[in-house]
């Protein structure tokens, strides 16, 4: 069976759901189809589920929402030698329940008239002479073909839509974080804080995290760069860290995945195709956070796609407006964060242990990231070239 649509969004995560939502909001007359490979939007969860407060509020109100697991008020950085540095910031963020959160975003899109198709995966696509994309679909009901004026690829780290459309989506190994995470129960920590621990033996090239879901229960995981690791894989590093830090914790629900700590792909568009979110490497390369970025990119993509279809021009030159808007919004900042990430890679555990002690000389109420950085520049001159690479 073959059917036609105006916009086909492939992947119903935050980027895809917001893209479908925005396309219908801007142009309600258009047909928008949102595809999800799994049987249910929001599963499996491949995410630590942390999100900043301000970015989230651009899309949904988290106060009292059922898709929130926990409000976060503090960030605790943990040095390789276990020295803790509590950073004072206000309204830090939230730990989500991604299964419910993703479902809520998809429901918004459906509420505006987008059609959600679960248990359906895209198997390939070709461009027709009239400029439409013909996408082969595999689903519970058998094989189908969908012809779309614009395809929005929000298919995550694997990024098959970009590949099919001829975009460069490959990642150098040093910019791929291999991640593993358990939900750990029965452990002791401040349930209003997230913990981030660095260390070459803990998570080389990345960090380990504790993101609370409720008192005593947390997402405990880590991301590392395999090129810097010994022969162990991410899950083995995580098992070792949990055994040392939370020997009595009960590990449940293991999940793994890749976080692309790179910069936005050179070209996020071509004739009749846009890619957004993890699929376009839009994760913050320093923090590894990608949820809000994905939603912001999805909003831009949905809006540009809808306007292009209305104007009757879905060519690459028209769709390039999306890339320009993204680069102005966040893409150019990510180039700076990436440089900072690369510069920080040259610093060793001894430096971070010493930096933690410096930071703890600042009174707790005044210990913001900005003040820590300012103090650190004075006490640790080796940071000056790092700062220079960020600001130049």
């Amino acid at each position, binding site marked *: 069976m073959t059917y036609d649509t105006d916009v086909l969004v492939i992947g119903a995560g935050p980027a895809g759901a917001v893209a479908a939502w925005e396309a219908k909001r801007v142009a309600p007359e258009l047909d928008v189809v949102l595809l999800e490979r799994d049987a249910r939007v929001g599963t499996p969860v491949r995410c630590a589920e942390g999100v900043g407060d301000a970015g989230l509020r651009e899309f949904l109100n988290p106060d009292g929402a059922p898709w929130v697991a926990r409000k976060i008020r503090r960030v605790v950085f943990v040095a390789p030698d276990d020295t803790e540095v509590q950073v004072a910031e206000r309204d830090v963020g939230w730990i989500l329940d991604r299964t419910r959160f993703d479902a809520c975003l998809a429901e918004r899109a459906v509420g505006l008239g987008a059609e959600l198709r679960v248990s359906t995966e895209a198997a390939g696509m070709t461009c027709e002479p009239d400029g439409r994309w013909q996408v082969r679909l595999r689903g519970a009901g058998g094989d189908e073909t969908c012809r779309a004026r614009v395809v929005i690829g929000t298919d995550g*780290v694997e990024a098959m839509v970009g590949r099919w459309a001829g975009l460069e989506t490959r990642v150098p190994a040093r910019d791929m974080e291999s991640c593993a995470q358990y939900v750990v129960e029965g452990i002791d920590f401040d349930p209003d804080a997230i913990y981030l621990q660095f260390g070459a033996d803990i998570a080389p090239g990345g960090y380990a995290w504790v993101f609370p879901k409720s008192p005593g229960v947390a997402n405990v995981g880590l991301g590392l760069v395999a090129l810097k690791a010994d022969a162990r894989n991410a899950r083995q590093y995580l098992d070792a860290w949990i055994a040392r830090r939370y020997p009595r914790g009960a590990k449940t629900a293991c*999940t*793994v995945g890749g976080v692309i700590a790179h910069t936005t792909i050179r070209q996020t568009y071509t004739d009749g195709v846009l890619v957004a979110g993890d699929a376009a490497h839009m994760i913050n390369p320093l923090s590894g956070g990608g949820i809000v970025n994905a939603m912001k990119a999805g909003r831009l993509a949905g809006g540009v796609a809808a306007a292009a279809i209305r104007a009757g021009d879905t060519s690459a030159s028209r769709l390039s407006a999306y890339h320009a808007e993204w680069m102005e919004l966040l893409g150019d900042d990510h180039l700076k964060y990436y440089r900072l990430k690369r510069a920080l890679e040259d610093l060793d555990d001894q430096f971070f242990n010493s930096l933690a002690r410096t930071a703890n000389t600042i009174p707790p109420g005044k210990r913001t990231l900005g003040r820590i950085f300012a103090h650190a520049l004075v006490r640790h001159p080796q940071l000056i070239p790092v700062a220079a690479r960020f600001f130049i």
Partner: protein
Amino acid sequence: MLDASDGGGYRSPMRLAPAFPEIAVVDLKVCDRCGLCLPLCPPEAIHLALTDLVVDRSTCTGCRKCIAPCPVGALTMVPA
């Protein structure tokens, strides 16, 4: 700057004649289908379908870039 010669394989040329002909295979009992290995593969030989992750034997160049990053160690090298 991002594509300097130490770019870790980004857009690196494919190795057409590996010295030791090996290819990657995936153990589907261990693989979690997270998709991490797909963008790491220079010749794009790895494909993920709903229930399957497949390494294309004819395209894999044996470069090993996918082996260590797998978070659960599901990929290994075998003689081609």
